[in-house]
C-alpha cells in the first residue's frame, strides 16, 4: 500500500484504504496522493456516525418498513431446475424468530477438486440422499392368515444404491426390533413373519407401516438431491440439511458448503458463523425482493441476536427478555409476569433506556437527550 495511505490505518477502515490504493492514478505525485489522503480522511470523518445516534431504531425501521412491501408468496422459481425455497416475509420472520425447524431447509454442497468438475456427481449426490426402505420396494403384500408380510423389491434401485439382499435384511432386523419372528430373503422378495399374539392383523399392519420408513442408506434429513452447475463448478443442492454428517465426508469442500438453517450452523460451527449466516440469509431475501436495505442494519440486527453468545430470536423469550429494564420488558409482552418477577428479586429500574422515560414523561437518553450540561453553580446570594 502507498505509504501516505498507510499512515491512515487506524483512522480509516482498511477496506476503504485498499480501494483507494487500487484506484490511485499511476505515477501520481506525492503531493497529489497527500491531497487524496486528506480528502479521504475528511470525507470519512464526515460520514462517521455521531455519538448518541439511535442506530437500533433506525435499523428496526429499515427492516420493518420494507417488510410491509414484501410479498407473502412462498414459492419462486429463479431457474427452471432450482428448488423451491421459502422467500419473502415468512422467511424473514422465520430467521429473526430463530425457529428450530425451518420450512425449507437447504444445503449447497461444494465439492473437492476432481469431483467439482462433474466427476461421479450423480453417484455422489445419490449416495447422500436419505433412502428409506419404501423406496427400494415395489409392493407390500400382507398375508393375513399367517401374519406374514411379503415385500417385493425394486432390483434396479437396489443396484443403483449398491445394496444387497443381505444388507437389507440386517437393516430391517435392526429397524423393526422386537416385531420380527423370522425373516427370509429370496432373490427379489423378503418374507417376514411378524411377532404377534394370536392372529392380530393390527400388529402386522403396524409392522408394515414401520418398515416402510426404516432408514436404509444415505444421510439422515436429506430429502432430495440436485446436482447443479454453478458457474464453472458442479455443486449439489439438497433439500433438508445435515451439516455435521456432510462435513464428515472427505469429498466435500467444507469451506464453501453452507446450509440455510441458521440454528444448525450455530450448533455445528458456532456463533460467529451463525451471525454471518444470519446476515447472508436476511440479505438474500431482501435482495430477492428488489428492496434496498443497507447491510449495516442487518448486521446490527444479527449482532443483537448473537451478542450473548447464544442465538436469541427477536421474541419475548429471546432478545427482549434480556433487557435490563423491567418496564421495557413489561411494555412488550406479558407485563404481569415481568412485574411480579421484578418484585421478587427487588429489581431496580435505572431508567436508562427509551420506553421507561417515555412512560415517565422524561427526556430519552438517546440522540440529543444524551448529553448533559456541566456548569458551575452560581454562588447563591444570601
Amino acid at each position, binding site marked *: 500500500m502507498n505509504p501516505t495511505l498507510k499512515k491512515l490505518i487506524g483512522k480509516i477502515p482498511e477496506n476503504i484504504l485498499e480501494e483507494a490504493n487500487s484506484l490511485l492514478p499511476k505515477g501520481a505525485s506525492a503531493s497529489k496522493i497527500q491531497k487524496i489522503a486528506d480528502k479521504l480522511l475528511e470525507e470519512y470523518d464526515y460520514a462517521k456516525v455521531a455519538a448518541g445516534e439511535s442506530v437500533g431504531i433506525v435499523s428496526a425501521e429499515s427492516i*420493518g*418498513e420494507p417488510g410491509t412491501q414484501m410479498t407473502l408468496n412462498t414459492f419462486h422459481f429463479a431457474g427452471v*431446475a432450482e428448488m423451491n425455497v421459502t422467500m419473502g416475509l415468512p422467511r424473514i420472520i422465520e430467521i429473526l424468530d430463530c425457529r428450530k425447524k425451518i420450512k425449507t431447509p437447504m444445503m449447497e454442497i461444494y465439492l473437492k477438486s476432481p469431483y467439482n468438475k462433474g466427476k461421479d456427481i450423480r453417484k455422489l449426490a445419490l449416495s447422500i440422499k436419505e433412502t428409506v426402505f419404501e423406496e427400494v420396494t415395489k409392493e407390500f403384500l400382507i398375508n393375513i392368515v399367517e401374519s406374514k408380510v411379503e415385500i417385493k423389491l425394486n432390483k434396479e434401485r437396489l443396484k443403483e444404491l449398491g445394496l444387497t439382499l443381505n444388507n437389507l435384511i440386517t437393516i430391517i432386523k435392526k429397524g423393526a426390533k422386537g416385531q420380527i419372528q423370522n425373516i427370509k430373503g429370496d432373490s427379489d422378495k423378503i418374507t417376514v413373519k411378524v411377532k404377534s399374539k394370536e392372529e392380530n392383523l393390527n400388529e402386522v399392519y403396524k409392522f408394515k407401516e414401520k418398515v416402510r420408513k426404516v432408514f436404509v442408506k444415505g444421510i439422515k434429513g436429506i430429502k432430495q438431491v440436485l446436482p447443479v452447475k454453478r458457474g464453472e463448478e458442479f455443486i449439489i443442492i439438497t433439500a433438508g440439511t445435515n451439516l455435521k454428517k456432510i462435513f464428515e465426508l472427505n469429498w466435500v469442500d467444507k469451506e464453501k458448503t453452507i446450509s440455510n438453517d441458521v440454528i444448525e450452523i450455530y450448533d455445528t460451527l458456532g456463533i460467529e458463523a451463525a451471525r454471518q449466516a444470519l446476515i447472508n440469509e436476511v440479505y438474500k431475501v431482501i435482495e430477492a425482493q428488489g428492496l434496498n436495505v*443497507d447491510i449495516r442494519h442487518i448486521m446490527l440486527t444479527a449482532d443483537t441476536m448473537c451478542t450473548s453468545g447464544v442465538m436469541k430470536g427477536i421474541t419475548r423469550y429471546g432478545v427482549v427478555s434480556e433487557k435490563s429494564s423491567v418496564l421495557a420488558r413489561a411494555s*412488550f409482552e406479558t407485563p404481569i409476569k415481568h412485574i411480579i418477577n*421484578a418484585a421478587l428479586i*427487588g429489581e*431496580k429500574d435505572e431508567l*436508562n433506556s427509551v420506553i421507561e422515560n417515555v412512560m415517565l414523561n422524561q427526556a430519552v437518553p438517546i440522540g*440529543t437527550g444524551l448529553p448533559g450540561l456541566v456548569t458551575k453553580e452560581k454562588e447563591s446570594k444570601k
Partner: protein
Amino acid sequence: MAKEETPEKTKAEENKSEESSELSEEEKKEIIEPSEVGIFKQVKAIEFRMMSPKLIKKMSVAKIVTPELYDKEGYPVDGGLMDIRLGVIDPGLRCKTCGAKLKECPGHFGYMELARPIIHISFIAIVHTLISCSCRDCGKILIPDQKRESVEKESEKIQKELGIIARRLYIKKIVTSLKKVNKCPHCNARQYKITIEKPTTFLENDKRVSPIEVRMRLEKISDEDVSIFGINPLASRPEWMVLTVLAIPPVTMRPSITLESGERSEDDLTHKLGDIIRINQRLFENINAGAPEIIIEDLWDLLQYHITTFFDNNVAQLPPARHRSGQPLKTISERIKSKEGRIRHNLAGKRTNFSARTVISPDPMLALDEVGVPKIIAMKLSVPEAVTPWNLKYLKAFLEKGPGKYPGCNYVVRPDGKKKKITDETKEAALEELQPGYIIERHLMDGDIAIFNRQPSLHRMSMMCHRIKVLPGRTLRLNPAVCHPYNADFDGDEMNLHIPQTEEARAEAEILMSIPTQLISPRYGLSIIGCTQDSISGNYLLTKDMEIERNHAVQILTSIGITNLKRLPSKQKVTGKEIFSVLLPSDFHYKGNSRDKEDNDVIIKNGSLIKGVIDSNTIGQEAGLMLRDLHKQYGPKKTITILENIFRLGNQVLLDLGFTTGLHDSDLPEDGRKRIDETLEKAEQDVQILIQQYKDNKLDIFPGRTLRETLELKILELLNKARNETAHIVAEYSTNENATVIMAASGAKGSPLNLAQMAACVGQQAMRGKRIEKGYISRTLSHFKKGDLSPASKGFIRHGFKKGLAPHEFFFGAMTGRDSLMDTALRTPKSGYLYRRLANAMQDIKVEYDNTVRDSGGKIIQFTYGEDGIDVSKSENGKINVKKIIDSI
C-alpha cells in the same frame, strides 16, 4: 397468627434524585417567578418490591369496614369504599387527607383486615415451589449443607442465562432428585409430596393445607434460604404472598360515572371490592359466632374466589366474575395487560394538544418543505409568544384582532400562569393589562414550524418538520414530491399536523426533522425524495430531443419562477437540454447512466447537460443519483430548491406540450396483430407437442423433478417466452410519441409489459408459482375436458385487455386478483408484528461516545457501528465513493 403483613400488587417506589432535595429551596423561589419554567424533578430509578402488610397499613389513610358506598343524601360513607379520605371524584368536594380538589388529589390507599389469610393468585407457583422445597417442620431448604454452595452457584448462573423462572425450576429439580429419602436433611422430619389443586388449593397427602398453614410454613423459611430461590428477602418475604391485609385502591383509580338519569354506575373494581368486603364481614361474623367449620370453610373459599378474581379475572380454572349483564368484569390484571391496557395504551402511548387532521391534497407550487394549512385551522391552533418590551407593539396587533380575525390570538397567559380566553368582550381588558412577561398565543402564520405526519409511521421520514403556509381551502396541502416518504396519495388520505409549543421543541424539530435533513434515507443512503410521475415524463421529453423558440422557453421558465435567464443561450431556438441546464448550478459535474440500455451516458459539465436524457435514474425518488451528488456538493437546502425547480419544470413542460394516454396508445396495425396471433398460435402448438411427449413418456426429466413437474415447468417457460415475444412485437410497432411508451421509458410509471398486456396478451396467470390447478375434479372449470393440460384450461390469457377477455380468462384473472388481495390483507398484520418486535428489541441501542454500539444495559453489541463506523444516511448507498474523491483531485 401475625396480624400485620400481606402482599399486594407490586409497588413502584420513586427515588427522588439526591440533587432534588438540595434544589428544593431554589425550587420554591422559582415557583414565585413563573416566567422561568424548567425541569425540577427527575425520576432516577424505580424499585420494584412486594408490599408487606405493615407497609400496606402504613401507607393507608383509612380502614374500610363497610360495603356501603353512599348514605341517603348521596354523600360517601365513612369507612366505605368511596370514603373521601381515599380521594375525591366529585367536583366541589375536598379530599379529607390532602385537602386538594378533584384532579389535584392523586388519591390515597385504604386497607381492610381479612378474616382469614388468602393466597395471592399471582404467587401460587412460587409458593408451591417454596413449600415443596423446604422442610415442613424446621422450614429449612431440603438441600444438605454440603451441597448448598454448589447449588447456589449453579442457580445463580442459570438465573443470569435463563431468568428467574428457570432458576426456580432448577431448584425444584434438585430438591426432587434429593428427596428420595423423604426426610429433611436437617431435622429428619418426614416430608410429603405437595400438589396444587388448581387454582388455589394446596394438597399434602390428599389432605388440604390451609392458607394459615401455608403462611406458617413460609414464615419459617430463613432469609438465607429464600435467597437461594432467587428471591430477595428484603424486597419480598414469602409470607407476604399470603394476604392478611388487603390494600384498597384509591377511588381516583376507580371513579364512578353518573349516568344521564342521575344514577351512579360504579367501576368494576368497586363492585369487586364490595363483594370482598361483604364476604369478609360474613366470615368474621361466623367465626365470632362459632359457626361450624364447614360453613366457615365455604365462606373462606368464596373470599378466596373474590380476591383471586379481583386481581385476575382470567384464571384458567375459575369462572370469571361477571356483571349482571353477563359481561366479565375488568379487574386489575386486565387493566394492565394487552394493547388496550395501562402500559401500552396510557404509558407508552401519549396524546397531544395543538394538533390538526384533515384530508390532504397536492400543490406543486408550494416549496418542498412547506405545508399548506387552511385558514380555519390556522385560527384554531396557536403559537405562544412571550411579550417583551421590544415586541410589545407587534404582539398587541394580534390581540387587537382577537380570535375572530386573522391573524389574531386566542389566549393570553398572565405571568402567574392563568390562561385567559380572548373574546370580543375581554379583548379590551387584556389589551389594557398586556405588558412584558405575558404570553400571547397567536394564530399560526406563514413560516411557523409544524410537524407533519401520516400513519402508519413506519420510519422516521413519516414525521417531518414543515414550514407553515396559510392558504384558503379546507385541506392540508403538500408538495407531491414529498408524498413518497409519507407514502401518501390523494385518494382521500388524511394527515396530522402538530405545532411544537416550546422554543426547545421548535429547535429540535427544525434541526433534526426538517425535510432538508431527511432527504437522504438512512435505509440505503440515497435520496428518498425525488421527482414523480409527470415531472419525470416532462423532463424526459424536454431533454430528449426537444427544441423550441427561445421566447417559448423563457415563458416556461418564468412561469415556474425562474427569472435569472443568463444561462439560457441567446439563440433563436434553444434545446430542451439547455433549458434544463438553467436550473443546475454552474459548477456542477455529473456522470451517470440513464435507463436506456444502449448509449446511456448522462454527462453534465459545468452545469450544462451535454449528453443523455434525464429520467428516473437521474432524478427519481429512491434512485436519483444526480440528486445524491447535488446533496453532497451543495448541501440539503440548495438541493431542495433545485429539486423543486426540476419538478415544476417537468410539470410545466408537460402542461405546455399536452400529454395524455388513452386507448389509442394500445392500437396495433393489422400485420402487428397478425404476428402476435402467429406467435401465440405457435406457442400453443409447442405446448401441445410437449403434452404429447409427456403422454408418450418421451420428455427429458429435470433432475430432482417428476415427469409432471417437468412438463409444467417447461410449459410455463414456453408461455412466458411467448408473452415476452408479444411484448417485443408491440414495442416494435409503438412509436416514440406513444404516451404509454414515454412513461415506461422515462421510468415515470408502467413498463413495456403493461402495454403488451393491454395491446396483445395478458399472459399466464400463476398461483403459488404454478399454473392454475384448483377448481373441479381434474379440471379448472366445467368449460374444459377432464385432464386437459392445454394453456387455455390452466389459466393462460391470450387476449389483451383492450380486445377483451373471454369469460373463462376473466375468471382466471379474478382468481389471481383475489389471491393477491388476500396476500396483502394477511401480510400487513404479520409484518406489523415483526416490526413491533424489532423496534422493541432494538430501540435503545445507540452509539456511545467511545464509538461502540451498546444497549441500555451497557452491553456492547458492536465495537464499531457496521464494522466501519459509517452512518448510512451520510454515505452514498452505504459506501464512501472513493473513486469520485480521487477523480475530483
